[in-house]
């Protein structure tokens, strides 16, 4: 797996989003969250955005009041990981319009939906911003419809 997890947390260490790309016990997850928040929050303002933690590389970046923290495997390209974080922020920004931490707090499920259109199974899923945005919009519209026609065994999709 190239990406193992993505965490978003505030400057006070409050978790805003957690995405795990591998199967882990709850205890392990909690430990990782603790370790990441401690390590990242302890960093000096203009430090390098990369750290080594156990056998993983940690790539983090701060956007306004939120820290975005990616745990990636050792053969991953750290600079590209920074780009991945940045792309996700752009997607959120486009969706919420000038996104801020509160948006992510009150609409956390949307943040997840957007992430799930961009990354999957620890890899980048779609490299075009526009396509991701359009998919989210279409899904949202689908959600508005009260009763959608669901016939599980009809024709194949093309």
């Amino acid at each position, binding site marked *: 797996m190239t990406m193992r997890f993505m965490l978003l947390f505030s400057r006070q260490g409050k978790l805003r989003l*957690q995405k795990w790309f591998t199967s882990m016990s709850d205890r392990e997850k909690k430990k990782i969250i603790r370790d990441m928040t401690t390590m990242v929050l302890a960093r000096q303002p203009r430090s390098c955005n990369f750290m080594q933690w156990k056998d993983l590389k940690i790539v983090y970046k701060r956007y306004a009041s939120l820290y975005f923290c990616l745990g990636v495997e050792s053969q991953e390209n750290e600079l590209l990981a920074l780009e991945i974080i940045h792309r996700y922020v752009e997607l959120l920004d486009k969706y919420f319009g000038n996104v801020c931490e509160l948006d992510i707090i009150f609409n956390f499920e949307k943040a997840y939906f957007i992430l799930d259109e961009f990354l999957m199974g620890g890899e980048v899923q779609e490299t075009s911003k526009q396509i991701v945005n359009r998919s989210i919009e279409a899904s949202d519209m689908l959600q508005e419809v009260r009763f959608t026609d669901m016939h599980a065994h009809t024709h194949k999709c093309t």
Partner: protein
Amino acid sequence: MTVTLLPLQEMIRAIRSARTQCEERGVIQRECAAIRAQFRQADNGGRSHNLAKLLYVHMLGYPAHFGQMECVRMIASPRYSEKRVGYLGAMMLLDEKQDASLLITNSIKNDLSNSNQYIQSLALCTLACMGSAEMCRDLAPEIDRLLRASNSYIKKKAALCAVHIVRKVHDLGELFTKAARSLLTEKNHGVVHGAVVLITELCERNSETLERFRKTVPDLVQIMKGLVISGYSPDHDVAGISDPFLQVRILRLLRILGRNNEGASDAMNDLLAQVATNTDSTKTVGNAVLYETVLTVLDIKSESGLRVLAVNILGRFLLNNDRNIRYIAMTSLQKIVGTDHNAVQRHRGTIVDCLKDQDASVKRRALDLSLALVSASNIRSMMKELLSFLSSCPPELRSQTASGIFNAAERYAPSQRWHIDTILHVLTTAGGDVRDETVPNLIQLITNTSELHCYTVHKLYRALLSDISQQPLVQVACWCIGEYGDLLLRGECQETEPVQVTEDDVLDVLETVLQSHMSFPSTRGFALTATMKLSTRITENVDRIRSIVSIYGSCIDVELQQRAVEYNALFKKYDHMRAAVLERMPVIEKNSQGHINGETIKESQTVKVKPGDLLFKRLMHSPWLNTDLKLMQPSTLSVFSVVATVTVYEKDGVTVTLSCEKQSDSGLTVTLTASNSTESDIRGFTLQAAVPKSVQLHMKAPSGDSLPARGAAKVTQMVVLNNPNKVQLAYLQLVSEVFDLSPIFYSFGSQNI
């Protein structure tokens, strides 16, 4: 539609406005109770909101397992809004270890063939996130079908789902090989990206598959060329680079395919050169692509020109203002410092400058790389830099720096004096962070550099005068003063300014160490032994030493007390032996690094050993041995070497000699021979023996029990010792009941048994 307690956003607001943890818990418990009640009721249209609330609560760290079944139900719902939240809940609350996860397999299967692509997408995403091996096996054929016949939106997701399946169940890789191959020809970037990731995964798992996919190298090269050369593509452009994510993945796949293969490496050579030269490196994204290119070039069988290009790119990275870029440059250089050493050496200056960077990560990388670049030709300048780094480096790097310096000094020291100076410098700067074996190693180095004894003891004496807090330094200094104190007192030295000290001054220093609360117990041991040794090297103040030693005979520290008592005995009963015992240490042979505690007490077979002195001195003086010297009773101590017969007792006409013969790796046969040169026979002479618990002893019957007069005949006795645990030190204590023999101690060196 039943009214829920609070809509999602209201609940979040309520939780956030709670002023204490207790209040927050209260709100959450209330909400959870309501949610649980709602779950039990029939479908009421507000289910997705309730589950969403539960997921929020879960993210705060509260238990939410009662929502698992609700997720399962919601996933089966016909409403998209409920499915969406249901699948999200499944990804957050269910993982493959929960039994409930199997229950959604059927729903996923159904949803995979749904006419609506967004529903298919939910199923694919969830499967790729938390699909267990069983689920993967179950659904793999479905995924394969979707890989071939669906729209690009689904194909790209199916590809990544296939990646997950292959990771969980390696054998299923075979199933997807063909589909993966054909996906490479698609136009849609998302699909191609997914295909590249899938092919990478398949190739990494199976070398046969890798062989087969080598044929795709030309296709991949084409795709890359298209990305690099083509004009602006608004859909995928990032700061002038066209689809950097795809470019990086293709480069990584090329790396895997080109590794160890000349043909494939040749085919991609031109492309890599092109990417390396044409990619704009002003922004991070361009550098990300360049970085991946460099990694690929260095890993495949590239031609030398290309390799040089790659290393130069790294060199440029080292000069970049962006700390991140410097960091990754150093990580990459570290990987190739073994193979392309000269190329990396060219950038040594910049790397050493990075030691002064503010950032801890950069410093760490710079340290690793600097240590790897030390060589015989640059040792002096590099050491200057490393020593100055040591004085200002962050505490967590000190130990590593110190050991790195020691290693480098040992391998490339241009002169012994330089070597000693360097080690002393480290001990004064970072004495507290050095590893344990530094002290014995340094002592050995000093002992073996006999021409510098005077110089060394002077330097150490001065260092001790200024600071007695750095324990390793104090230990070495005490040892040296003990050994070479006479050189100090002589007041002349060629290499450095001599000190004018009196015996009292020197003893003062040692006493200060003994009494200081900063000194570790082991350090005080060193100081006491050193004081004792000086008794044979000074002339006037022996009484002072005697009194120090006797004071410590009642010290609370058991180890110190024991030593003091032994030294006391050396003054009193065994004064005749004192000079021999406290003689200068001979040259110590070094076996290998890291062997301490006894293994280094291998006798140097070439050195002529006087029976009864070498090993004993080692035991007494040895900085290696820890306190397991309980065998040192205040009694005659004799030690013998492997070689000849040794006389272990000679008094009043009775002589007992001992010789030993090694039988096996752990067995030793000792032959005791007693003779009597007095005028009368001695009857009832028996010898008993004792050994440490870990050594097995078997005494054979003696040849007789009386010693005839005038050496007419000897009594011999064989003792078989077995040392299966290979204890470092073993002793054989002989006792005679009839004769007034004091208990005799014999200590074996480690290779005797």
